[in-house]
């Protein structure tokens, strides 16, 4: 059992949980994830590490309430326990001195990209970040990302904060500018990562994405998370989650993300009915 040390709400239906998991906190590296299971009935879902503290023995997760498991998770309080917390899983992000790196985050991807941007900065890279969300109430960690970036551009789809539009617009302008960008990291919804990869392709800038397929065990046992990269099947859980965005078969990824749409809806509605609808 793993104890929730503290929790806070970062935006509409976006929550941060700090969880006691000393063994994982000691080993965690940027880009890795954990698999959690809330209780006996729960499913196993992967969540990317947003932060960790080896001394404190804590691991921080940020998630958006989007389905049954995240809905149930959001009902837990500080002091409650999560049955299972497994990690750190996946290959850590490749951290090296590349030069100038553009870190592009969409939605909850802000939480996943921050430790990577931080590690890249510590390695001596110049970080230019682009942070986007649908609306102002879904934006968070602007300050955290700014603190590791030389420059930060914020966008919202509806223009309620920062620049109106999507992240690919400032990304394209950046690539067209005087600035020589050596690498792009894009983390967010698969559609956003797909368009980032499409944007950078004509400029020939290596673009790393962190894929988010459905997983069960997260240790290479089931193959649920298989993705096609450069025409070769990979398991995102053990071969990734980071891959070359220009090589990813995005249509396959988005199709496989829809396998359980009906079941997810049914499960979500059942839990909402059981727990009482929350505003």
């Amino acid at each position, binding site marked *: 059992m793993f104890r929730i040390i503290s929790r806070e709400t970062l935006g509409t239906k976006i929550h941060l949980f700090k969880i006691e998991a000393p063994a994982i906190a000691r080993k965690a590296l940027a880009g890795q994830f954990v698999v959690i299971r809330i209780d006996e009935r729960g499913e196993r879902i992967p969540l990317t590490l947003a932060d960790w503290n080896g001394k404190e023995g804590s691991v921080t997760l940020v998630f958006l309430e989007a389905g049954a498991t995240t809905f149930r998770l959001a009902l837990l309080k500080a002091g409650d326990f999560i049955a*299972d917390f497994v990690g750190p899983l996946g290959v850590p992000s490749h951290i090296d001195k590349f030069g100038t790196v553009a870190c592009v985050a969409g939605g909850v991807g802000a939480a996943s990209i921050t430790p990577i941007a931080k590690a890249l900065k510590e390695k001596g890279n110049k970080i230019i970040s682009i942070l986007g969300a649908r609306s102002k109430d879904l934006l968070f960690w602007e300050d955290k990302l700014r603190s590791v970036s030389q420059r930060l551009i914020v966008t919202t789809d509806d223009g309620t904060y920062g620049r109106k539009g999507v992240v690919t617009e400032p990304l394209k302008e950046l690539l067209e500018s005087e600035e020589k960008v050596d690498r792009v990291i894009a983390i967010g919804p698969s559609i956003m990562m797909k368009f980032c990869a499409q944007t950078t392709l004509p400029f020939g800038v290596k673009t790393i994405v962190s894929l988010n397929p459905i997983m069960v*065990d997260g240790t290479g046992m089931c193959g649920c998370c298989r993705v096609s990269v450069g025409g070769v099947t990979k398991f995102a859980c053990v071969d990734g989650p980071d891959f070359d965005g220009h090589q990813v078969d995005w249509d396959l990824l988005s199709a496989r993300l829809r396998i359980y749409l009906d079941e997810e809806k049914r499960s979500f509605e059942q839990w909402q009915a059981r727990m009482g609808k929350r505003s």
Partner: protein
Amino acid sequence: MAKLNLNREPMTKQDPKTRGKNFNEVALGYSAEQAKAEASRCIQCPKHSCTDGCPVEIDIPGFIKAVLDDNMPEAVRILKDKNSLPGICGRVCPQETQCEQACSLAKKGAPIAIGRLERYVADWERTNIGALNPKAEPPRPTGKQVAVVGSGPAGLVAAADLAKLGHSVTLLEALHVAGGVLMYGIPEFRLPKEIVQAEVAYVASLGVKIELDSVVGKVVTLDELLESGYHAIFLGTGAGAPMFMDIPGENLNGIYSANEFLTRVNLMKAYQFPEYDTPVFVGRRVAVIGGGNVAMDSARCALRLGTDEVYIIYRRSEVEMPARREEVENAKEEGIQFKLLTNPKRYIGSESNWVVGIECYEMGLGEPDESGRRRPIAKEGSEFILDVDMVVAALGTRPNPLIAQTTSDLKTTKWGTVVADDTTGKTMKDRVWAGGDIVTGAATVISAMGAARRAARDIDEYLRG
């Protein structure tokens, strides 16, 4: 000498029509009368060839005599002296190629039903006295610590044996429950999970500490375990990584590896969705590719989830099928359709990426290959399309590379198996032993247990050395 009784006592099973709709155990076990009737057939021959045929060397005539004598506690004692997991072995061991094949009555076509008797004794213990450590006297502690990695059949046996010898054992399991393939792979209707957990509890009652959610190779490496105070390590992580055929369309929606399908259904209890949160997609026409026990398990699970048709697609003929005869028969009784000498060429998908069909070859059989079985050869021009909306690929598994990747001096083969001594299980890495599927590639529960027993013996010798 009494006349030989060649009438094997049959074991009652659920009716095929009924059982195809539930996940309850298919075989119902012996009654006390049936068990005694079967035990009375044993001629107590002096050869004990059955014991020689048992990978863990159970005193089979001994426990059978105790059943006949109505001395059930003694039967339990004899069985558990050599086998910590009798309820499991009595159900899933291929007795027909081991102890029962070696039985003196096998030549007459009616070997003693040793597996059924083993199961009877284990079930008697569990329901009458509880399957916990019967020994009041704990062994003298040696002060040595052993880490056992993986809690499947090999890990459970190694842990139990080492604990019985007085070593302090920690069992590390990656999943959220102990039992490995016994929990995620073998279905409830063939091996009830309650029985697996009762036998895991027995192993724990010997003093074994079980740490779940511990992915060795990720949260801790073998070298870190050795540095942190463990004197020896046993690796029993099995062969848990699924193989695919690498043919077009294999990533379409609705195509599962057997590992994923069985894990969703058995471990995550997707058959009870939405009571349990994990879903599983079930089509109307399901094809299972492969001819092993895992293929039979997958096909029979799919049937129980309420499909219309389930096909087994196997590239050779029935005689080459690696599955146990009994499981093939069970599958047939339940209405699974066998498409033999058939092999997928490619999968056909819909616009939304869902599988809608398989283009198959008809196969012929050529000369025997290195496995001794006749080599399947695709007949050019024989292609036909089978309409399906779900596929389970049960094509075998290989060891998970996570540990080998993080242990530079652990030698592995090109198939990813760990190189270890045949008799002792000692690997090329100092203080590390291995046994079971991680060494041999996918094999049986009992062979993994036998390897674990031999390794535990060698680890004990080393620790006392």
